[in-house]
């Protein structure tokens, strides 16, 4: 009964009302957590329905926060639901999250994860982390008075494209459900001071082998967020997670350099038009007119070395920059294009 009263008096903010946030919210509402904020700027998409079990076909197109609030109020009218149909960012996070006893991080991208962590630590509010990729999930409680924060576990995010996101790698529909329910479990334990929280451990769940392993996570005494407190305000998380590209990020290759990579670099793209391709081409290349680059990009491996060429090197530079911006790890282009290739490397290539 004491526990039920504690839940009734508790205020929990859920960031991300998606695969993790919806199952967590359902159990917190059903369990009688007094106030639940739902923070999500997205609208319900048909592709969400396979795992975001709070939503129905009729909700498609509606703001997730509003649709979820309606369903949760139907489930338990005693609970106050605070729908916040907005994207959490550095400007609004402290105000949105202030006054809550616990935060559930159900977001789906690195910038928001670091933002939630930092805001939670600055506010002195613990956060229950959950994340999934394919058949795997992670759960931990961060930002307690003595425990580690997300930055203690991962000081820096991976550069874009190095770790696949769910759009690329897919997610087994039930995995976020499992992890979201574990987050709700940790939340209820924390609010009722029951059992051993995951505040010094990272739970790693492998859905394929159904192995649950936990690893020690300690506060990093050099952590600028929770230990040394060098970070005293929120930063630009998009920039933190995607450092601006510098010019040398796209390497310019000479025909000789490119010749040495042919047969090794797995992706060679010819970004000219089909009529140019008919005139001449470099063996092993794949025709990808610039206008189709965005579509073709989705079928390519971002981790694999990619070389781009065109007629004289202008379109290829543009394409290479776009590939880098999309997270391709290693991109170079043929300076001077196939025209220079014909002069320096292979005279049988027709010039035009």
């Amino acid at each position, binding site marked *: 009964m004491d526990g039920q009263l504690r839940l009734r008096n508790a205020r929990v903010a859920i960031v991300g009302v998606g695969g993790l946030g919806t199952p967590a919210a359902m159990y917190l509402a059903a369990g009688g957590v007094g106030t639940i904020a739902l923070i999500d700027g997205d609208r319900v998409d048909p592709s969400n329905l396979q795992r975001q079990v709070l939503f129905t076909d009729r909700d498609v197109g509606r703001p997730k926060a509003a649709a979820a609030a309606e369903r949760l109020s139907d489930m338990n009218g005693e609970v106050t639901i605070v729908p916040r149909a907005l994207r959490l960012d550095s400007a609004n996070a402290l105000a949105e999250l202030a006054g809550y006893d616990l935060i559930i991080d159900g977001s789906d991208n690195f910038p928001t994860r670091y933002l939630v962590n930092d805001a939670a630590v600055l506010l002195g509010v613990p956060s229950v982390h959950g994340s999934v990729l394919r058949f795997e999930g992670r759960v931990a409680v961060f930002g307690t008075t003595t425990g580690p924060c997300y930055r203690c576990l991962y000081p820096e995010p991976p550069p874009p494209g190095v770790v696949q996101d769910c759009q690329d790698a897919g997610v087994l529909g039930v995995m976020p459900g499992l992890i979201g329910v574990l987050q709700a479990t940790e939340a209820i334990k924390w609010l009722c001071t029951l059992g051993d929280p995951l505040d010094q451990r990272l739970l790693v769940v492998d859905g394929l082998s159904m192995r649950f392993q936990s*690893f*020690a996570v300690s506060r990093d005494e050099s952590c600028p967020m929770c230990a040394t407190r060098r970070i005293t305000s929120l930063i630009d998380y998009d920039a933190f997670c995607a450092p601006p590209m510098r010019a040398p990020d796209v390497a310019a290759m000479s025909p000789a350099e490119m010749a040495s990579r042919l047969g090794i670099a797995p992706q060679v793209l010819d970004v000219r038009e089909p009529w140019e391709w008919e005139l001449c081409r470099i063996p092993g290349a794949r025709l990808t007119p610039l206008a189709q680059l965005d579509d073709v990009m989705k079928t390519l491996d971002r981790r694999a070395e990619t070389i781009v060429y065109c007629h004289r090197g202008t379109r290829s530079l543009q394409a290479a920059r776009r590939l880098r911006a999309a997270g391709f790890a290693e991109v170079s282009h043929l300076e001077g294009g196939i025209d220079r290739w014909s002069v320096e490397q292979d005279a049988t290539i027709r010039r035009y």
Partner: protein
Amino acid sequence: MRINLPSVLTPLAGGHHTLDATGDTVGQAIDDIARRFPALSPRLRDSHGAPYPFVTIYLNDEDIRFLGGFETPVRPSDELSVVPAVAGG
């Protein structure tokens, strides 16, 4: 010793979830599997051979960052687990 890989890396390791590796240090064990499965190499360490800040490697259940990094000595009975940061939800 045994090295446990996350499912996202198993396609780069011939489909194996766990690999046997030899070496006297964490770094040598990582070298061993990187040599056998070159596609794994850039997912485990950077181009200078240093650990990434977004891939945690546990020796049994301890983060090697708080032990001796890649220099941490290992015994054949030890287990390494690779746990990269994921953000999905």
